[in-house]
């Protein structure tokens, strides 16, 4: 493995007596897509909040591209090249879609001057298919488009590492396919992606590695096929029913050599 783009050691966060994230260590290689899964309340979003500086850490260190960012403020972490989307979309509601994306392009400070930032904002709108909505207020968008806006805003920051916190929740099947294609395209640009997702089918088809959190601690980690067969993961999160179905589709795929499991 090449030198890690992100290296997390012993990350812990307590809320009073509750340990939301418990001694989590993980490492990301440049360019990989990693899935972060686990039951509700497992600490997935808290982990992202700790890494991106939105929550102070009780213990542990975070190194990004070799630099220690454990104690950095969220806006400084963002400017270094870590972007994130929020589980509950966070647009600047009374600004236009274009202005939202421009904010990412300008304040990240990673696009050079104003003209370059404007170009970048347009490019990201086009990339996410929002260019025809550029003049709308963010509050006028559908949920699917608001999720795309979160993506466009993050991309305009020219991130090296991107956390996607349930960007696909609440989307219908058609919207889902478009969103997945988009995520693949982002990865193709060389952005390292960590995706939090409850739809295991999506995870399995998208990522090269899965990390499972349970009660704030790392339960399992590895290739999707291995992790989703891990008995402890099945017991804690997946349940037997899905595990069987997943095993069936896997063996069917191996038999027919199809690219993706059919739904």
């Amino acid at each position: 493995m090449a030198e890690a783009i992100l290296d997390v050691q012993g990350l812990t966060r307590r809320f009073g007596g509750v340990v939301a994230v418990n001694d989590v260590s993980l490492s990301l290689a440049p360019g990989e897509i990693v899935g972060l899964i686990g039951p509700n309340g497992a600490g997935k979003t808290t982990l992202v909040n700790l890494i991106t500086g939105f929550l102070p850490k009780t213990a542990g260190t975070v190194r990004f591209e070799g630099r220690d960012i454990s104690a950095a403020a969220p806006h400084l972490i963002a400017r270094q090249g870590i972007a994130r989307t929020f589980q509950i979309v966070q647009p600047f509601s009374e600004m236009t879609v274009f202005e939202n994306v421009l904010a990412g392009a300008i304040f990240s400070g990673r696009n050079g001057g104003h003209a370059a930032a404007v170009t970048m904002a347009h490019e990201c709108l086009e990339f996410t298919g929002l260019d025809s909505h550029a003049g709308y207020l963010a509050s006028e968008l559908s949920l699917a488009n608001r999720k795309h806006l979160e993506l466009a805003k993050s991309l305009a920051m020219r991130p090296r590492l991107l956390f996607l916190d349930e960007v696909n929740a609440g989307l219908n099947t058609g919207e889902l396919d478009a969103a997945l294609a988009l995520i693949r395209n982002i990865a193709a640009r060389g952005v390292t992606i960590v995706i939090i997702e409850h739809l295991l089918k999506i995870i399995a088809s998208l990522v090269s590695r899965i990390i499972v959190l349970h009660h704030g601690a790392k339960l399992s980690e590895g290739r999707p096929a291995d992790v989703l067969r891990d008995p402890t993961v099945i017991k804690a999160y997946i349940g037997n029913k899905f595990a069987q179905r997943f095993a069936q589709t896997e063996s069917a795929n191996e038999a027919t050599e199809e690219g993706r499991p059919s739904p």
Partner: protein
Amino acid sequence: MKTQQRTWTIAFGAALVLATIGFGVTANNFLLQAGTTLAMYVALAYAWNIVGGYMGYPSFGTAAFFGFGCYAGAIAQNAGAPMWLAWPAAALGGAIFSAVLGRILLGMRGHYFAIGTIAVVEVMREVSNNWEALTAGATGLNLPIVAGSPREVGMLFFFVMTAFAGFALLLTLLIARSKFGFGLRCIKQNEQAASMVGIGVLRYKVAAFVVSCALMSATGAIYASMVAFINPDDAFNILMSISVPVIVTLGGAGLVLGPLVGAVIYMVLDNFVWINFINYHSAVLGVIIIAVIYFIPQGVVREFVKRGSVLLRRDTAKAA
């Protein structure tokens, strides 16, 4: 299109400056006084608009920083400083004072911030009432009287105050078009998202607060030089903390023209009501203000622009 707009803006600005000069030279003492008060409220409204309008933090602290400027200017002048020097000194003092206070106050949002700023006004008035060695307490402070006939002095302060209001307007124009102003608008709508895109939220908020409060303090210092006597109740008048946000809301918060338009409407209403309802002045003015804000909550300027653009749309529809 854009150059045409710029030409109109410059023409409008030039007309405004010429009208102001013409008014200052020809107006009688009563009108000159009214014009100076208007200019003072325009300056305060522009100062408030930075924090209350662009950044969306509803401050009721105007009187605290205006009053701080009154006393800072008065103390500087009484220590021998010429008033031209006392005004920037008051602005600098206000900037330092608000930089310290802002770090505490701006940790609160919405109603909590509003209540915190009211508390600052009350604390300041108590301090000025009781710190007799510095402020002469409730007796108040006299300032050196400016030499010249009442008319000359009136004209001098009219031009100083309008020039300062114009400065506040230009500063607002600059902020509105800058990265700084864009950041403030982001903060107004979503602080978490703002820090996610890389905005140093606390630094932006404190900077806006400092600019706003320094403008208010300078206005207070000019006012103190003009009236040549200040006391705690006059300098830290909570009514000013209320009327300034009302002015900006009337005109349109977060707009370049909002404070100017709002101040003119407010002063016209105020004088109209004074003349016609002497006994019930405050009550009638209050009812009118509530009615205006109820029916046009976004302010007169936005309403005007909205109707204007509807008319334009009809024109283009006809043309097509």
